[in-house]
């Protein structure tokens, strides 16, 4: 039997899932249980000691959630994944495995505002120090490397401005520095961009957005590419040294190229606790089954709307990398040839007031703080998601006062354009 490489759509439907052993149910059952019985004392001991594969307690593993994990690992081309309660929880768990107090990591300045806050304040209180670099100036990453650097973090398509990061160029800096590259692939999803193919060692997602895709469930996930050697320079003792809580097991030695995902699970998730609900895992994996169809429609709609807005007399500028005059267009064609995603910003000639009035006059677009819903969404980042940044940081992250952000849904594009038209003319 030859090993076939199935297409993305086949993996999106099948990876990780199999008819239920007990009932034959074809859709994955929601194992809404906190805990799982042991066969006997020896079985219990071997599960607790990580000697056997199996379930103990839903804070650590759950069969419904496991389907989601394998599915996303397969779509990203990773060795393993760990789902958690939110995108932010995923980032917390990843960095907890990599950093000791006093360590540094380098992050792109162009990130989701919530991530900028998490890194600047919450992480700082743990003694994990972020050093910012500019994704439009790759040498700024190189200049930021010190002996304390433990990781580099970027977004593939950055929220809110939809700019594209040159993943391969940043991966080269990470490789030279001997640290893993972490890519937040939330806005692209593996349908548009597969960061592991471009040198990412760890991929994180907010499943809340396009992967779940229906605006109904929070979730996050960590994908281990299996590409980083954690034991090489002794920089990552969590993975290379004996773990006291598991009687001296060395994780990389025991679990090989999926040791990072195991560390995130048996240390990070077990001890910090942000477990995903099995019900959310069910909704999100059901969403993923249609990811290729939705993502293409999202991107195609976004491109049509960006083109229409560019020609509108009241619009000052449109920042969509799918437009041929955009500064990120070359990167978009290289990294996201199927489409540049559905999140972008534009500014109005009428400035702040025109932005506020547009948002309040729209009838199909919903004014809310999320992206990646089937429904089209709109927000004014400067007064909401990015409001806690100072003016300088707002502008640098692409959320200046005159900027409006869209997350284009999968409705019919003619209706979305008509809604924008009536709101702009109101």
């Amino acid at each position: 039997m030859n090993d076939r490489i199935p297409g993305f759509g086949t993996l999106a439907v099948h990876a990780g899932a199999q008819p239920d052993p007990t009932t034959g149910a074809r859709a994955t059952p929601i194992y809404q249980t906190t805990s799982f019985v042991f066969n006997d004392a020896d079985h219990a001991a071997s599960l607790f000691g990580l000697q056997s594969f199996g379930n103990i307690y839903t804070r650590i593993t759950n069969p419904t959630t496991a389907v989601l994990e394998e599915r996303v690992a397969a779509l990203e081309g990773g060795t393993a994944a760990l789902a958690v309660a939110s995108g932010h929880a995923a980032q917390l768990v990843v960095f907890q495995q990599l950093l000791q107090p006093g360590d540094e990591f380098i992050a792109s300045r162009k990130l989701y505002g919530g991530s900028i806050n998490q890194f600047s304040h919450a992480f700082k209180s743990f003694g994990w120090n972020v050093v910012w670099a500019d994704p439009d100036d790759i040498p700024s990453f190189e200049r930021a490397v010190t002996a304390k650097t433990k990781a580099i973090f970027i977004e593939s398509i950055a929220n809110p401005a939809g700019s594209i990061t040159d993943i391969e160029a940043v991966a080269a800096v990470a490789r030279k520095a001997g640290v893993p590259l972490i890519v937040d692939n939330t806005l692209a999803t593996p349908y548009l961009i597969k960061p592991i193919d471009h040198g990412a060692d760890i991929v994180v997602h907010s499943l809340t957005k396009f992967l779940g895709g229906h605006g109904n469930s929070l979730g996050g996930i960590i994908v281990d590419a299996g590409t980083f050697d954690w034991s090489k320079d002794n920089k990552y003792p969590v993975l290379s040294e004996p773990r006291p809580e598991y009687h001296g097991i060395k994780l990389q030695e025991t679990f090989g190229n999926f040791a990072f995902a195991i560390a995130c699970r048996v240390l990070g998730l077990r001890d910090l606790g942000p477990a995903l609900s099995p019900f959310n895992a069910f909704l999100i994996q059901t969403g993923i089954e249609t990811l290729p169809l939705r993502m293409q429609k999202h991107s195609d709609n976004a491109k049509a709307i960006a083109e229409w807005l560019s020609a509108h007399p009241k619009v000052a500028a449109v920042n969509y990398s799918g437009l041929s005059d955009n500064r990120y267009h070359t990167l978009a064609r290289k990294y996201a040839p199927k489409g540049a995603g559905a999140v972008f910003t534009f500014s109005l000639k009428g400035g702040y007031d025109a932005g506020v009035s547009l948002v309040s006059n729209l009838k199909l677009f919903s004014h809310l703080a999320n992206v990646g819903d089937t429904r089209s969404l709109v927000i004014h980042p400067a007064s909401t998601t990015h409001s806690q940044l100072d003016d300088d940081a707002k502008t640098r992250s692409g959320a200046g006062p005159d900027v409006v952000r869209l997350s284009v849904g999968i409705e019919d594009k003619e209706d979305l354009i008509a809604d924008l038209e009536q709101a702009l003319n109101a």
Partner: protein
Amino acid sequence: MSHDSYNDAYIREILNTVKTVAMVGASPQNVRPSYFVFKYLAERGYDMIPINPGQVGKSLLGKPFVTSLQEITRPIDMVDIFRSAEHVMPIVDIILTLNPLPKVVWMQLGVRHDEAAAKLEAAGIKVVMNRCPKIEYGRLSSEIQWMGVNSRTLSSKRAPIPTQGMRLSLNRSSVGGGSTTAADRVAQLNNKDKNDTA
């Protein structure tokens, strides 16, 4: 054959056909990988024999330790080597004196010795290196999926309910050769670097 990656059919055939497995370097310490693998394979119905001269007189999960491969009186289907690469050649030389010869020699995750592999293959013995039979069994049966690991297999068949001591079906459909994953690509590059500097 190349040992940079293995297709699933090769590994599946080995795990589906071997019965008696002698583990060189089996440890009685329950946090060592060799202990994990020994226990797991025993639970999946393989006839396991622990080899460790320092432990003779004791037993591992009810199986008495033996000093060396030559001491084993029944035919061995597979030798699983849990020793680092520099200890491999002398073990291979012993393996080649066995009668009958084992069908398979498996070297654990992190262990690779191309010269030893060539010698074994010249004698008609199949070789697997730098892999773990527990991980591969868990992957091909998809049991490892409980831990969020990408099994790289798909199946639309109802799985049997796993019970203790049960052999699981490994005959799922594989999704592409090992060389398609980033992890295997990097492992190949690392190995090439090692060979280039050697």
